[in-house]
């Protein structure tokens, strides 16, 4: 049943008798992609768990009125990205932290989170990514790890393809420089 298309799932979701079942299938279909996307932004597993649950709650609330102008997948990604960025913003406000300090905190999470266990190079790459500006970080993660098309990224982030290409280019240059250091 997990092979059902998005439009079939939507049709089932709009039927009150199969609403919960359809949502369950939708979550199972997209949960991993959404989780890893969020995890790359917030780093900590506990935070990612909070954010994905909030994301899915929002999806539950908004799926009824979802217009099929865009793919469900890009719509889900947009909600997840906004939730993750809002989460970081709230963290910043809650602890009255300046911009750079949240990134410092995320760096510390990379070293202390019990659910992080990559090799030295992987950790170094993650630390380099954390030093990028927010938008470049998003673009780099989506392109490099998820190999997402620029057109899809454009729909999710609301930025032109040209600007995304430029962001990715700048991000790669900075990362290469940072990886060559030490």
């Amino acid at each position, binding site marked *: 049943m997990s092979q059902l298309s998005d439009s079939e799932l939507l049709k089932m979701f709009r039927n009150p008798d199969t609403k919960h079942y359809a*949502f369950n299938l939708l979550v199972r279909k997209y949960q991993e992609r959404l989780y890893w996307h969020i995890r790359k932004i917030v780093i900590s*597993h506990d935070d990612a768990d909070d954010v994905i649950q909030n994301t899915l709650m929002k999806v539950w609330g908004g799926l009824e009125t979802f217009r099929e102008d865009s793919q469900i997948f890009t719509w889900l990604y947009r909600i997840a990205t906004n939730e993750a960025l809002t989460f970081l913003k709230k963290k910043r406000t809650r602890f009255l932290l300046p911009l750079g300090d949240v990134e410092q905190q995320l760096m510390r999470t990379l070293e202390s989170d019990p659910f992080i266990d*990559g090799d030295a*190079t992987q950790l170094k790459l993650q630390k380099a990514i954390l030093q990028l500006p927010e938008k470049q970080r998003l673009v780099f993660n989506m392109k*490099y790890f998820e190999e997402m098309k620029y057109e899809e990224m454009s729909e999710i982030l609301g930025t032109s393809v040209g600007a995304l290409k430029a962001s990715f280019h700048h991000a790669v240059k900075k990362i290469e420089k940072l990886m060559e250091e030490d």
Partner: protein
Amino acid sequence: MKGKQEFERKLPFRVPEGYFDELPTRVQKRIAASEGQSQSRKWVTLKSQLAFAAGFAFMALLGYFGYYMARPLMHNQLERPKTDYVEIVSRTIYDFDDIELYRAVENKKRSDSIKNAMQDMPHRLYIRSSNCITIIDEKKEIKP
């Protein structure tokens, strides 16, 4: 990062065992809880609206009875102007001249209308009733 060192595109992150198996169930539980909350929130809203309506009805009832209890008193107050008229007459009656009254009545008889009678003696004050005019006093002497 073509032409340079290509890092393994693997994330250093992992999740607790069985995390993705349990996540849909956890989300469904949260949805059920939030739907229960929204039901109870609706009930709380309804209860507060009912309480407000009951309070409003009570105040309206209180106002209604209050109005009817106070009504006789207001009725008495409305009759006061009559008393005031009597007062004016009694206050000015001491220098009331019977001859003047007689003349006024005579004058009324000669006049075709009350208006004409009043025009004849503009310095006087009159009480008009259905069939006669009564002089009370000269205007300048009336002091409340």
